[in-house]
C-alpha cells in the first residue's frame, strides 16, 4: 500500500517536471520560461527527496532554484523581455528529426538495464542512520577530495572572468562609452 502510494507520487512529480520543461521551451517570453524552469527544478528537488538525497535536494533548492534563477530573473529584468521574431529556418526540421533519434537512442538504455553489478555500502538504512549530509560529506572529503578542490579553482576562475567581463566598458564604434 505504501509502496503504491510512493510510486504514484513519484510518477506524478516526474510528469509535472516533464510538463514544466515543455513550458520552458514553448513560452514566448523569457520571464515565463524562467518561472517554468523554477517549477521544474522544484519538482526535481522533490524527486531527490523521494530518492533519499536530502542534502542534494536542499542544495538544488538553494543554489539552482534560488541563486541561479534569481540571477536569470535579474538579467531578464535588465535586458527587457522582448519576444523573438518568427522566422523560418532550417533549424526546426533539423531539430525535429534529430531529437526523436536521440530520444530513441536514450530509451534503448532501458532495454539494457537488468543486472546491477555495483552495490555500495550506502544503503537506505545507513543513510538514515548518519544523515544524508554527513554521508555525502564523508564521501566527498575522503574519496573525492581532488574534484572538490578543482571545483573551488573553477569557481575562482569564473569569478575572475566575470570581473574582467564586467569591469571594462563596452566599445561602440571604436571609442569607449562610459
Amino acid at each position, binding site marked *: 500500500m505504501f509502496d503504491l502510494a510512493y*510510486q504514484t507520487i*513519484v*510518477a506524478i512529480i*516526474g510528469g509535472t*517536471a*516533464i510538463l514544466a*520543461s*515543455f513550458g*520552458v*521551451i514553448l513560452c514566448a517570453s*523569457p520571464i515565463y*520560461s524562467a518561472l517554468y524552469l523554477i517549477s*521544474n527544478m522544484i519538482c526535481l528537488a522533490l*524527486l531527490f527527496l523521494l*530518492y533519499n*538525497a536530502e542534502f*542534494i535536494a536542499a542544495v*538544488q533548492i538553494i*543554489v*539552482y532554484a534560488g*541563486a*541561479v534563477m534569481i540571477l*536569470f530573473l535579474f*538579467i*531578464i529584468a*535588465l*535586458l527587457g523581455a522582448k519576444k*523573438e*521574431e518568427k522566422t523560418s*529556418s532550417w*533549424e*526546426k526540421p*533539423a*531539430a525535429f528529426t534529430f*531529437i526523436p533519434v536521440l*530520444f530513441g537512442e*536514450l530509451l534503448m*538504455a*532501458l532495454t539494457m*538495464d537488468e543486472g546491477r553489478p*555495483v*552495490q*555500495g*555500502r*550506502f544503503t537506505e538504512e545507513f543513510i538514515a542512520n548518519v544523515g544524508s549530509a554527513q*554521508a*555525502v560529506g564523508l*564521501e566527498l572529503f575522503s574519496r573525492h577530495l581532488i*574534484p*572538490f578542490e578543482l*571545483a573551488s579553482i*573553477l*569557481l575562482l576562475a*569564473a569569478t575572475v*572572468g*566575470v570581473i574582467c*567581463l*564586467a569591469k571594462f566598458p*563596452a*566599445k561602440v564604434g571604436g571609442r569607449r562609452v562610459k
Partner: protein
Amino acid sequence: MGSEFVLFVSAAIFCIGATGFIIRRNPLIMFMSVELMLNSVNFLLVGYSKFTNTLDGQIFALLIMVVAAAEVVVGLAIILTIFRTRRDLDVDHINVLKG
C-alpha cells in the same frame, strides 16, 4: 518501475532541453535549455546512486551544480556585454566576434 522511470524522465527532459536549445533564438532561453539538460543528468545520477547504494552519483551531481553555477554566471556576463554593445539579443544576428 524504478530505474526505468528515472531513465525515461531524464531522457525526456534532456531531449526537451536539446530541442529548446536548437529551436529558440533568445540566448536567455537557450541558456535555460542548457540548465534543463544539466538538471536531467543530475536526476539520473541521483536516482542511480539510490539504486546502486553508492553516493558517487550524488557527489557528481553536486559538482555538476558547481560547474553549472560558474557557467551561468560567465554566460550571462557575456550576454550582457553583447547586449551593451549591440542592443540586440537574437543569436541569428550575432555574426561577428569583434565587438
